[in-house]
């Protein structure tokens, strides 16, 4: 069969394959949705049982989810504010400045793309313990403040901005920081959006490090709270666990459904470097 002889039959087969795979891929999520909206007695077997919100009501009351939500919100806000600031400054340095050791520094920065704080848990715990920051939201975010990924992304973006714009701003008397703020930052808006979405998703979902570095409700993010809730007394009640799981993922899921294109574009932009 040649490429041109794309028969109707073959198209049909491919459509069916695409849909079967999509169904298979959506199944776990649909199953969780189904279970979350049904009573636990009904959720163990598929049936046309009445839909209920009682699982969500129970979860909201049984665990300090409002606090977890607030903690996660504060965490991702803190991280992107700091990451944006530091990556913008450092990205500008690598894009437009000559300084001794620049190339070596750049290689060191890139190394962090592989050797991430995620695998340096023992020593980072020790550091934050020495700083007296264990069980704080700042401690969850701190290892990620300096982001190789962000620096690299901003460098690439700033490099593509015409140097003439920089020169023009400086001729008009703008200093380094003002030039950065007035010329570079506005032109990089789509990149900040992409970086922001990827970073928020990553840190909203991050688990192992927050698990290690927190030990009370006051600092725990959603992921850790969810795990503690799910492995607690409610052990086997799948409807309750599904409701809790969906609740914790809901803000991101809803954002994704609303801004699907931006999410996909952002992950793409962030990946292709």
């Amino acid at each position, binding site marked *: 069969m040649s490429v041109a002889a794309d028969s109707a039959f073959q198209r049909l087969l491919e459509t069916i394959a695409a849909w079967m795979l999509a169904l298979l891929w959506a199944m776990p999520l649909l199953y969780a949705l189904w279970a979350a909206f049904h009573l636990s007695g009904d959720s163990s077997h598929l049936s046309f049982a009445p839909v209920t919100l009682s699982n969500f009501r129970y979860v909201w009351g049984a665990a300090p989810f409002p606090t977890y939500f607030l903690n996660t919100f504060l965490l991702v806000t803190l991280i992107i504010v700091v990451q944006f600031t530091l990556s913008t400054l450092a990205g500008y340095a690598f894009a437009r400045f000559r300084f001794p050791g620049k190339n070596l520094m750049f290689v*060191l920065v890139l190394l962090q793309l592989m050797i991430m704080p995620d695998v340096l848990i023992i020593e980072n715990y020790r550091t934050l313990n020495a700083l007296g920051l264990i069980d704080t939201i700042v401690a969850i975010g701190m*290892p990620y403040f300096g982001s190789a990924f962000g620096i690299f992304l901003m460098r690439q973006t700033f490099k593509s901005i015409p140097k003439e714009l920089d020169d023009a701003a400086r001729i008009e008397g703008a200093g*380094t920081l003002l030039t950065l703020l007035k010329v570079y930052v506005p032109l990089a808006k789509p990149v900040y959006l992409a970086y922001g979405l990827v970073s928020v998703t990553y840190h909203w*979902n991050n*688990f192992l490090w927050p698990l290690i570095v927190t030990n009370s409700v006051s600092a725990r993010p959603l992921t850790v709270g969810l795990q503690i809730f799910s492995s607690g007394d409610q052990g086997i009640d799948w409807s309750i666990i*599904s409701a809790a799981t969906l609740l914790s993922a809901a803000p991101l899921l809803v954002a994704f459904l609303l801004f699907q294109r931006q999410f996909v574009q952002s992950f793409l932009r962030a990946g292709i470097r």
Partner: protein
Amino acid sequence: MNKAASDDLDLPWVGWALFLPAALFLAAFTYYPALATLFESFFSNAKGGRPARFIGLDNYSTMIDDPIFWQALQNNAWFAVGTIPASIALAIGMALLVNRALPGRAIVRMSYFAPTILAMVAVANIWLFIFAPQIGLLNQVLSSLGIATHNWLGQPDTALAGVTAVAIWKEAGFFMIFYLAALQNMPANLAEAAAIEGASRWYYFWKVTFPLLMPTTLFVLVNAVVNAFRLVDHIIVMTKGGPNNASMLLLYYIYEIGFKYWDTSYAAAMSMVLLVILGTVAIGQFLILDRRTHYR
């Protein structure tokens, strides 16, 4: 500091000043801990007023004699081998399927990609439900087909495969978007030329499409390898490395030794193995990947 100098390009300290804040955090939470891990791996644990003392390679010889370490390493290798080719093949397949006109394409693409934005912890909770011994979806489907049910995560022979399946499900859609972008950048006249030559689709894929996707595959491969050694959230939720260490992965073992048994110097020695693996991937990437495609 006066950063308003007119000829900044030649003022090295301005560049350094801009880089410094990020550099401090990178140094404190990546370079310092990497070196400190190496240092600590040569020392004993400080216990009850007794300071840590230099013990040379003792932690490493403990490691070599520790069957669980070897099992974790072996499991991790199997986990990587199980996850990476399968998720890459699925990603290419998904990209090819949604790269053409298709009824409901947006929905199909969305269901492939959705697992990417979910937390691994959330995903693991859902899959725990699917793999559950009696009432789990998988066993219900199997028993309705007359196939014997199985305690997927509770048996040593299937636990690792179970957590591998979850990782594949989570990653394939993420990798898909890179292939999709690559396919969309592929010149259309190639397919036309192949059609005129009467090339079969299979031939065309292996001789044209797949080689042209190679830069994407290398990029995805590096990501996939790093993820295979970095992600253990689902292990914590689903199996805790069990049963009988059957699904023990390296980072999870380090976490257990470091934070359950507080044997941090032994955990440091094992962390070095992880760092060497990731460092090798990094060097491999520098050497193999074409700098132009990667750094523009």
